[in-house]
């Protein structure tokens, strides 16, 4: 059996959850990610920063009225990374 290497950046619960949310939408704000994952603000911020640094997501900070908003979008690189990650997973569980 030939096992493919798993992307270490995605092989973490919260980062994988964030990328999975973003693959289903065009964009999502920080609070939506928080509600869906149930993680803390600090933890999400750290993981978003790591995904952004890797070029997997784009992050835009803006204001809606007086409220600050952090909008996240998956990049083509992030989409490819998730596809490759799922392919790699399949080789481990023999799908």
């Amino acid at each position, binding site marked *: 059996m030939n096992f493919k290497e798993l992307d270490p950046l995605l*092989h*973490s*619960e*919260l*980062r*994988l*959850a964030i990328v*999975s*949310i973003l*693959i*289903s*939408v*065009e*964009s*999502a*704000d920080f*609070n*939506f990610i928080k*509600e*869906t*994952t*149930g*993680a803390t603000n600090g*933890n999400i911020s*750290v*993981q978003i920063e790591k995904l952004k640094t890797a070029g997997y997501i784009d992050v835009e900070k803006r204001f*809606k*009225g007086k409220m600050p908003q952090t909008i996240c979008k998956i990049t083509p690189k992030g989409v490819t990374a*998730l596809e490759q*990650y*799922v392919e790699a*997973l399949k080789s*481990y*569980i023999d799908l």
Partner: protein
Amino acid sequence: MEERNLNSKESLELIAQMIQSTRSKLEKGGSIYFLVWGYISFITTIAVYAALTISGNPHYNWLWFTIPLIGAPIMAVIQRRAPKKATTYIDRIIGYLWLVIGIVVMFVPIVSIFLDFRFPILAVIGILLSIGVTLTGLIIEFKTFWIAGLICIALSFCTLFVKGMDQIIIYGIIILVSMIIPGHILKQKENKR
């Protein structure tokens, strides 16, 4: 949820769970738009019908313009109170669809003021709205909407064959069938999720 490594099965389950959870969260909230516009249009239709029947004064047709004048600020308040936290490509497509339909629907009566022949305003607006409802139903895969939309396209064509006040009655039925009834069914479905 925290930063921990998962095994292969857990990873696949997490991806599926997040996609499912995101979808079910985003499928809520669409009914409010149909209900607000539907009820404002329906009440205005009854008001115009009553005013024209009682007074016979055609100037009461200006009452139609209360639909955007009341609807637009209500929509702005709804969107400000509950801003969308995530948007999908489907949201964008439906948003643009209704933006274009809304603008054209606004221009139809305005342009008709300058025409020197009787333009079938209610039939044209009915067709435009029904096309919007049908396409929305097809895009979000909600059968009630596209069936209601198709029925109302047919009803809109019927409007061309009747005259005067009967046109307003059919238009009222179009609003009821294409927006209010499907809006309530969608709301019920949203509440069950």
